[in-house]
């Protein structure tokens, strides 16, 4: 995938991604409507033209709510790059088929043009002409992501 970047800082918590009070629903659009509400009021405007988040350390810290990656995916985010992810968020993102990659995001700027697909060893920054190495993901996670999440992964293995 190739797209432009929305940049965020360190320690973006799952409470910031989707507040607890909005999680009591199974409608993904309801989750998307409140994604990043307190952290970035312009998020929905940005996501119209930018589909990749580049963040700092410890993205997705806090609650195990899967509504967090689900909300971002439903809002239109296709990929999240961060220096470090909180463990549960990282696994949840992959489980719902949202691409995540751990890499040094410090030289990725707002609106930079980025190219990355699951399995790639590097993130390409077309704006700065840099290639940024990506931390290796366990093979099973690569397979789950390639299938589009745990549900399609499981179903494909049953067939």
């Amino acid at each position, binding site marked *: 995938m190739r797209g432009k970047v929305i940049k965020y800082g360190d*320690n973006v*918590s799952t*409470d*910031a991604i989707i*507040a*607890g*009070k909005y*999680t*009591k*629903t*199974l409608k993904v659009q309801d989750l998307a409507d409140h994604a990043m509400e*307190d*952290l970035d009021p312009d998020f929905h405007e940005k996501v119209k033209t930018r589909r990749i988040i580049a963040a700092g*350390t*410890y993205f997705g*810290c*806090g*609650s*195990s*709510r*899967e*509504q967090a990656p*689900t909300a971002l995916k439903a809002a239109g985010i296709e990929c999240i790059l961060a220096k*470090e992810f*909180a*463990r*549960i968020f990282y*696994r*949840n993102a992959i*489980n*719902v088929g949202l691409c995540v990659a751990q890499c040094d995001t410090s030289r990725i700027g707002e609106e930079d043009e980025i190219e990355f697909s699951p399995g790639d060893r590097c993130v390409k920054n077309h704006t700065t002409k840099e290639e940024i190495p990506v931390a290796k993901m*366990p*093979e*099973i996670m690569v397979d789950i992501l390639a299938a589009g*999440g*745990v*549900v399609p992964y*499981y*179903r494909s293995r*049953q067939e």
Partner: protein
Amino acid sequence: MAGGKTVAEKILSAHSGNDVYAGDICFCEIDRMMAHDANGPMAVQAFRNMGGKKVCDPRKIFFIMDHACPAPYERAANLQKMLRDFAAEQGIAFYEAGEGVCHQLMIERGHAHAGELILGTDSHTCTYGAVGAFATGVGATDMGASMLTGRNWFKVPETIKVVLKGALMPGCSAKDIILTVIGRIGAAGANYKSVEFYGEYLDRCPLADRMTIANMVVEMGGKCGFLCFSGMEPKADPDAVYAAEWEINLEEVVPCVAKPHMVDNYAPVTEVEGTKIDVAFLGSCTNGRIEDLRIAARMLKGRHVAPGVRLIVTPASREVMLLAMREGIAEELMQAGAIFFTQGCGVCVGTHGGVPADGEVALSTANRNFKGRMGNSKAFIYLASPETVAASVLTGVITDPRQLGGVNERESNQIR
């Protein structure tokens, strides 16, 4: 590779049927699964989307209503009904609203044991490390897959060893210990890792205090934690390999807070003394047990909460509430001006039951102070011990509990 194993390596080895070490990927049989009303519905949906008809073994699964209880609006009510119906259809144990916070119930009702592998749709599932279980939080889809197959995959975590030396000083508690540890190690310092705690303190303190420490392992990123008191099995091998080792001298632990908006934003209470508070919360899976309520009651008895302060008390379970009533604690706290809210998570997680207003300061015994955590991103949350909360509600400002009477040693608990 062969050699000594950590507790996490032993439990995952036993559940996968292979000798596994940090960094390995393994497939394991799950002993117990817990889902609550906030993430359970998505787990059931994932289970069905995977083609699930019957859960692997209903005796291994527990549904606990605690996050928005009793239901504050129709969406929550309908999702709880969905879980209630699913549990009835599958024969899954179902704990209704008001029974208590899931983690309290899992231990109190004997659903978590040493050496077991337990998954819960809640990050604070790591609390069961207080009794020696490998317990970790997962998302809804992982729970759906586990309910269907009875198995899941794990990356074996590295382990950090934390040695608690000596004894706590009066006025200090387990909450001060874990806030101090997190302040040192950092909010992401144990990300992906297991944490083993050692020290004679763990043999002296009640189960409640071990639960307080285990509960907040996830607040430093931990996957699971073990409170390695002397009777706990399995034990780590003497030659087990640790990623890092920390030593905390308990004599140097002081009453402390986590300042807004990060849990590792540590400060001794003396540094923030005098900060005006608007709302105080005593409760949660971190500090809502009878031992915590006893401390508060002892400090508040015959006194009254300062004007302008709302004190909300949420016992961690029905059993805790009943004990508080029997011991006269509930009455003492009510007389002192406390508001009691239904046993559950609403206040801590910001669904309902005590949302602070814009610009207000909340002093809370819970485990998170992220912006918006209690339901308002314009509020400021300080985390502290029950002792510090009780002292502060009397004065209306953050107060060092050592300045007030009645905060000497915590009474020991009957359950150990």
